[in-house]
């Protein structure tokens, strides 16, 4: 188990300026969904983007986080999607 704000903090530390939204999917604080909008994703493919997040959460992924669904966008992609 891990508190969602810790996940947010770790990602924001790794990707300064990122917009991070974390959702507890099961209410059990171990299955999360994270939506991350970050300019650091620009020019990176999906695997590379996910790796950035996994690297930021490397310790947590070994235990406290059982499942993490990721949605990753650049600010431009996110704007296009929302409009």
């Amino acid at each position, binding site marked *: 188990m891990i508190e969602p704000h810790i996940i947010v903090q770790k990602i924001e530390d790794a990707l300064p300026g990122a917009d991070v939204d974390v959702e507890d999917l099961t209410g059990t604080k171990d299955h999360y969904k994270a939506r991350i909008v970050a300019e650091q994703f620009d020019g990176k493919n*999906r*695997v590379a983007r*996910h*790796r950035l997040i*996994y690297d930021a959460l*490397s310790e947590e*992924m*070994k235990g406290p986080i059982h*499942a*993490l*669904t*990721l*949605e990753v966008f650049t600010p431009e992609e996110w704007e296009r999607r929302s409009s």
Partner: protein
Amino acid sequence: MSDEKKKSISLPITGTEPSASSDGPKTRADGGDALSEIEKVVNDHEIVIYMKGIPQQPMCGFSARAAAILASYGKPFQAVDVLQDPAIRQGIKEFSNWPTIPQVYIDGEFVGGSDILMEMHENNELAPLIDEAFAG
């Protein structure tokens, strides 16, 4: 060894000295280690999924989803149940430097986990990749 390697990915394999008869990746039954076996399986099949459970009886929602997406393309794919094999369960994470399961490989290349597979499926990016793997 008579098996032909279709494609080699450059991955340092520690602890396995190639024998005189074979310089490719080997299964553990043939004296390789888990990473070598993974490399061989990934190279020998057009599509491979490392998952929890089997496609007919997945043991995890993410594995179920990824296997169902692959099955929808109607091409054969190799499914490896990591729950039956602790060395492979750990080894696959090192092989791809990717901490989660399922993991999907097409044409010898790591494609991603269930989120990425779903996105590629929805964006019609998966069909050309699979077609190309079977055309080659």
